[in-house]
């Protein structure tokens, strides 16, 4: 059991290419930490640096109390589950799981006991003598997990382990991984670019962009208080709607004006957004905060329905605010919503749940807790 501490960790590939920049992060003992970000943001590089598979250019890395900055991968007692699974193709499932135990000089009887136990948990008993080539994607994924489990490492490092599975299997494995983490209680770092995985699996999310750590926090906290427009848009699908606007007025009445939507800010937000007075801002509203029916405090606006994605449990409507159709918002509406393409209807923006960002820096004006 161990915590992971990154102190000013950077990865410099030379000739100006930087993979990770000055990262500071502490992952608590037993925590399930998600690294989330688009391709090339440095999340996998960070994971590989923790594993020892990538050199750390500058900075320090500690696992537990031990400084492992320059330690070889085998000296760190971590187990990696790769996106590609990286099963040894010339070995059976049993041998794959046994390899790490053999390398550590464990007695054959103990090895067998651990493999049996892991195979029971993961339902791999019938496949122990098969080679990876004779397994399905889901089974290979389990073997990769089993290979990591039997080692009983201090830290599990998982590099997009679910991304090669189909949607149904992915949902199943997601749940199994959560259960497994509860059962084993090991510190886990899980790299993904999937927001659903990030929101549902982790104790905390660490969002990265262009090699920088952008925000760390509990999933719902990050969702409620994104630090900038990047996080606001990345952490949900459909993305948060962003509209360029301006804040005018005084402490008594603050008016938000944009070329498509203008309203007076709810009083309880005045304190949070007073700093933005007189500045160019970006107004953000999540699709679920746009409604088809009136709500107390919601601001009505007219829009044309451009497209409807009927998902059964809900309808995602794309709304055009002006005639040109250039200004589009997405709205997550109830399953009973029905309209024809081209209909011009009144919708209601729940501005009490709005977000506000500086137009210049894209940083958020913190709004505090959601009501």
């Amino acid at each position, binding site marked *: 059991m161990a915590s992971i501490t990154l102190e000013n960790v950077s990865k410099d590939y030379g000739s100006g290419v930087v993979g990770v920049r000055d990262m500071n992060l502490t992952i608590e003992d037993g925590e399930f930490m998600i690294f989330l970000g688009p391709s090339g943001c440095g999340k996998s590089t960070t994971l590989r640096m923790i594993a020892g598979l990538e050199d750390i250019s500058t900075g320090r890395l500690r696992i537990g109390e031990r400084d492992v900055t320059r330690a*070889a991968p085998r000296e760190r007692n971590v187990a990696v589950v*790769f996106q590609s699974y990286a099963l040894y193709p010339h070995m059976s499932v049993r041998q794959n799981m046994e390899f790490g135990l053999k390398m550590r000089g464990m007695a054959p009887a103990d090895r067998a006991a651990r493999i049996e136990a892991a195979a029971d948990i993961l339902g791999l008993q019938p496949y122990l003598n098969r080679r990876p*080539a004779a397994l399905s994607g889901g089974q290979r994924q389990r073997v990769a997990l089993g290979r990591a489990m039997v080692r009983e490492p201090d830290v599990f490092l998982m590099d997009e382990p679910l991304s090669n599975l189909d949607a149904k299997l992915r949902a199943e494995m997601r749940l199994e991984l959560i259960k497994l983490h509860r059962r084993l209680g090991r510190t886990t770092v899980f790299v993904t670019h999937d927001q659903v995985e990030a929101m549902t699996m982790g104790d905390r999310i660490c969002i990265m962009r262009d090699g920088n750590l952008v925000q760390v926090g509990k999933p719902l906290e990050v969702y409620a208080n994104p630090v900038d427009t990047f996080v606001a848009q990345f952490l949900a699908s459909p993305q948060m709607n962003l509209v360029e606007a301006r804040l005018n007025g005084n402490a008594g009445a603050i008016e938000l004006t944009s070329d498509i939507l203008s309203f007076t800010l709810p009083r309880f937000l005045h304190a949070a957004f007073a700093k933005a007075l007189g500045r160019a801002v970006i107004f953000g509203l999540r699709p679920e905060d746009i409604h088809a029916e009136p709500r107390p405090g919601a601001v009505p606006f007219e829009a044309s329905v451009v497209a409807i994605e009927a998902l059964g449990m809900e309808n995602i409507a794309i709304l055009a605010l002006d005639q040109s159709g250039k200004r589009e918002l997405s709205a997550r509406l109830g399953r009973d919503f029905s309209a024809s393409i081209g209909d011009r209807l009144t919708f209601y923006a729940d501005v009490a749940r709005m977000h506000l960002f500086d137009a210049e820096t894209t940083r958020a004006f913190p709004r505090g807790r959601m009501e």
Partner: protein
Amino acid sequence: MLRVLSHLGLCLACLIVLLPILWVLRTSLVPESLSYSTSILPAVTFENYASLFADNRFGTNYMNSIIVAAGSVILAMPLAAPTGYAFARFRTSGRAGRFAVLATQMLPPVALALPIFMLYRSLGLTNSLFGLTLVYTAINLPFLTWILMGFFEAVPRDLEGAAMTDGATAFGAFVRVVLPVAAPGIAAAAVLGFIISWNEFLFALILGGPRTATVPVALAALQTSNGVEISKVSAGVSLAILPLMLASRFIQKYLVQGLSFGSVK
């Protein structure tokens, strides 16, 4: 109908390619006096084969070829595999290093023949199978390194990562995981190296003597002052291509099998 036509076309193409080889086989089974006859099989005899072994010590030549060809591969492979791996995985000596490996293949062998002969004479390595094996090792080493580099590049890096986090050293990961996964490629490279050594003529002629003559040298020697004994030459050629045919069959199987099927995705 189209199927039949395309099969006929393919059969014809095969025949054109195979005809010279089939004709050599046919001539090896025909008495010398009838070897230039236009009929397909005027008579069948194994006399040419028997005479080759009885009168020309072809058995010794054959064994010499096997020793130097296999020996050179056995000596070169343990050096070529780590070298190829280093080039494939690390920035070892950069592009210049890779080019240097390839550059050795650009030199015409005849340019090396004289210096090597002088060197060998002073070292007393001429007319020895060991000396010839060493030359073939030197010829094979860059070639095998180059081929293996490609095979190692195709081995997923994650496999080494997995082995190293599982407790192996970098060298341990190479020996326990990369080598077995690349085994089909290594086998294919070994066969190619064997074929190169098996067919080599120039060095075998210059550095060898009657005791160490290999198959290509022995076949050339069948051209005597009495003319070419074509049936005997054909018998020798048929025997010479036998291991190559078996070897080609072997590489085909392993090359098609692919490198790391099933390890990823």
